[in-house]
């Protein structure tokens, strides 16, 4: 009797599994963003927007007729935990794709896991480049889509001759400043006109540095190119304004301050400073307006902190369209298989909230426009400059690899042993 029951049970299970693979069972996706710790300040918004995108797709019937079921894990701003949680998503939850990470160190931490299992990660934040894994799609900016245009703008339009490269002490600012320095030197800026300085994470006392900036900018022809990350920005800008410096004396061009970060700042003293991104909430188009409204409504409806006061910004847009890119690629190739999806993503053209964009044919990055925005008193950016058309991404900077030899991409499908 017991044996019969067992057989029936096994048969039922087998039946359930086959039907699950065929139709009604949802497809799982992983969301790997810190919801606690240092980076929660930025990454929570990305989780929210990815959930919103899956809701939207599900409402329209899902992907390949399947509903998407998001699995949210919290790596808690703890870099090694990113690798563990990625493994958990892949092996335990068997997700089809993962959306996640903010800091470069977290991406570097979980990258080996995605490569080992040949799984896909959509990474939505601008970063320092010098990486190209077949297991990652980079929907944020590569250096030539953010850093270089901004430095060019500072030279041409702001008339800057001296550059203060100020950053938080970790991999993104250090590599970014390497690229920036190589670029500035190649444009004939003498090396004594370039200052480079780093502060630890959470640095709070910027008195000495502002003193130096003041001395550096006394001639009125200097700017700060800031890669300061996270909560240090608040004391930095406050001290800058309190010591009597304004955007007229020395503009700050920031690479890590967007609308979301401005919510935590006292904006009036920042008016006139700049930021370089591939998207601003202030982009005037119908699709963007709808996106902004939907995001605010989503946050309010789900009782998320901030509610209607929430804003969108570059990484939020990149995280959002990442989900759509994946869904479109799946529809295109008619499969959830990683290798097929990867091929389908290459060269994919799509409509993002900020306008039409395109995935690169081979290097895993995204073709995007570049905008320079000036901070307005309502915490939004006025777009003062934009590129004509989309900028082609470079995973390895041509300013660092002057010989034209770029490393081969890592990861990808496992070579079958012969």
């Amino acid at each position, binding site marked *: 009797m017991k044996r019969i029951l067992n057989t029936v049970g096994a048969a039922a299970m087998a039946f359930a599994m086959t039907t699950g693979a065929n139709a009604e069972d949802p497809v799982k996706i992983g969301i790997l963003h810190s919801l606690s710790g240092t980076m929660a300040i930025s990454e929570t918004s990305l989780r929210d927007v990815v959930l919103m995108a899956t809701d939207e797709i599900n409402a329209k019937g899902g992907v390949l007729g399947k509903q998407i079921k998001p699995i949210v894990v919290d790596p808690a701003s703890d870099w090694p935990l990113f690798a563990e949680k990625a493994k958990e998503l892949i092996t335990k939850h068997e997700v089809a794709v993962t959306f996640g990470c903010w800091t470069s160190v977290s991406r570097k931490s979980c990258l080996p896991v995605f490569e080992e299992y040949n799984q896909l990660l959509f990474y939505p934040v601008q970063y320092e480049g010098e990486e190209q894994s077949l297991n990652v799609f980079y929907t944020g900016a590569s250096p030539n889509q953010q850093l270089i245009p901004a430095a060019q703008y500072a030279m041409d339009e702001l008339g800057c001759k001296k550059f203060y490269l100020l950053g938080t002490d970790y991999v993104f600012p250090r590599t970014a400043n390497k690229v920036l320095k190589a670029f500035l030197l190649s444009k004939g800026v003498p090396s004594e006109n370039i200052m480079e300085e780093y502060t630890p994470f*959470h640095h*709070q006392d910027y008195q000495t540095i502002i003193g130096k900036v003041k001395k550096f900018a006394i001639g009125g022809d200097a700017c700060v190119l800031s890669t300061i990350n996270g909560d240090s*920005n608040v004391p930095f800008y406050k*001290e800058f304004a309190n010591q009597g410096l304004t955007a007229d004396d020395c503009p700050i061009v920031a690479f890590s301050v967007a609308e979301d970060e401005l919510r935590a*700042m006292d904006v009036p003293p920042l008016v006139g400073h700049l930021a370089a991104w591939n998207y601003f909430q202030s982009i005037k188009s119908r699709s963007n307006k709808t996106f902004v409204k939907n995001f605010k409504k989503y946050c309010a409806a789900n009782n998320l902190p901030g509610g209607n006061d929430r804003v969108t910004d570059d990484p939020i847009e990149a995280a959002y369209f990442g989900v759509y890119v994946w869904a479109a690629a799946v529809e295109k190739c008619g499969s959830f298989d990683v290798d097929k999806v990867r091929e389908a993503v290459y060269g994919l053209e799509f409509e993002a909230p900020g306008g039409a964009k395109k995935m690169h044919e081979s290097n895993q990055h995204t073709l995007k426009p570049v905008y320079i925005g000036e901070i*307005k008193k309502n915490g939004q950016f006025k777009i003062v400059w934009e590129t004509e058309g989309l900028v082609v991404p470079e995973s390895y900077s041509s300013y660092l690899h002057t010989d034209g030899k770029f490393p081969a991409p890592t990861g990808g499908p496992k070579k079958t042993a012969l």
Partner: protein
Amino acid sequence: MTRLRLRSYLSAVTLIALIWAGSSSADDASIRGHMHVLANGNADARYAAAGALVSTGDARLESFFESYLTDSLYLWNDVLLVGGDITEDDDLNEWVPLFDPLTRTPYLHGGEAALIMIDDLEEISPSRKERSFMLNSKHLLRLSSSSEHMRLSGAKKCGNLPGIPEAYEQLQLMGETDPVEIVRRTAQESARLISFQASLDDLTSEAHMLVVQDLAATKSIRGLSRIEAQLQSLPELRDLDVETRDRLEHLYASSIETIKGHISFVERCASVFQGLSLGSVLVLMALGLAITFGLMGVINMAHGEFMMLGAYATYEVQCLFNWLIERGVLSQSAFDWYYVAALPVAFLAAGMIGLIVEVSVIRFLYRKPLESLLATWGVGLVLIQLVRLRYGDNIGVTAPMWARGGIEIIQDVVLPYSRCFIIALCAVSMSLVYILMGKTRIGLRMRATMQNRDMAKGLGVNTQRVDRFTFAFGSGLAGIAGYAWTLIGGVTPDMGQKNFIIDSFLVVVTGGVGELAGVIFSGIGIGILTKFVEPLQFGDFTMGAIWAKVTLLVVIAIFIQFKPAGLFAPKGRLADV
């Protein structure tokens, strides 16, 4: 190429300046006429209209240009208006109040102040060509502004390269007659920089020598790089005779020395002030901990969270004031008072929570240091998560107007008002704590209980009540530190763990556990030491914030080796308790 561009740029500015210099004030009607062209005309007509506007020299136009540059000009029913702060309704439509561009009074529509949906307005923004033109004219107009900040920034910009030589006369006049000292000095310096640039055509002239001497006498930091450039290019100038060259070389070198001397003096003063202000922040942070940990012996890992609560209490008071202003109970001008009102609120809020924590957790853990360490750590985590759930991660505290900007104490040394306020707040709280501990009855009981709980109990002191009060008081002080922090730093739920807790313990331990005086000396000492180490340079290597911190920790580690009990170690029988 660059020179050519510079020429054409200068000539454009000259044009403005010439019209501007010979102008008299125009009547409002013609100004409005020109403004209207800006909104409607073609590119050339707009350019001409902008020039005509500058030529009126009307200081009110400076803010008009500012609005033009920041995109807050709108055309509505063919009337040009300035937009105020944009508000959003529940449907996420944006509404903007409109003002007259010249008088800045609300624009009336049907007897009411106009509040228009932004989609119904045409935004007027300058073209790229007009932008740089506007920026330059802005600086000239600023010279006649009524605000000293505007005059100062205008005076500075006119002298900076490439400079606006046509502003020379005006600058000289300002250098003598402007009511504000720093504006006078900057205008004078800029005028000298302009004549320095002009005198470069003839280095042998008496005028050149004089202006270099003048620049040195003004201690012009802005002039330094220009004189240095002259000194460097001197050997390349072949047509100078030896005698003149020597004279120039001597003159340049001595001027550079004077200015550099001034700079190093300024830097030393700045280090002292910065150290003092960093020190006072540290003292304020550690003051509460000196009581809860130093006197009571509770290893209070939640100390940072009490500071965080103080900061959030400040934010709440700000929200309350905004709410009252929206409902018309308070006028907009009363907003700055929120910061005054927030002081007692921050103290009481943090104190109340401290009291609750004492009653529910701490009182079971006296004389159990390890358990209290873990328990308070847990309390801290709970508080962080509660605050995160309530507020999310991003909130902004607006500094009151009076705490913005700074005061120039010595030429080129600016001490921000916010930091002055913190130094003062630190001094006041320190003295109050001293008076409370040393001169009052409750202070006496507190000290008795902390020194020997059983003896105090035996002598009739209600030690439980004293413990409760002391812990709440220490927590309240932490709340005040968080309140002060909102002026200079950011507010996040985990600010306590990230920014404060380590530094606070460092100060208390270095100062000597149980001694309030130790907190002052070690706090200020650590502050000044950091600020002296940070700018140090060895060849190409600068210490910077990272190595300053490392150095500081090494110094303290060595210090603790030799004086394990800190600067002010308890002596005699107290040492054993």
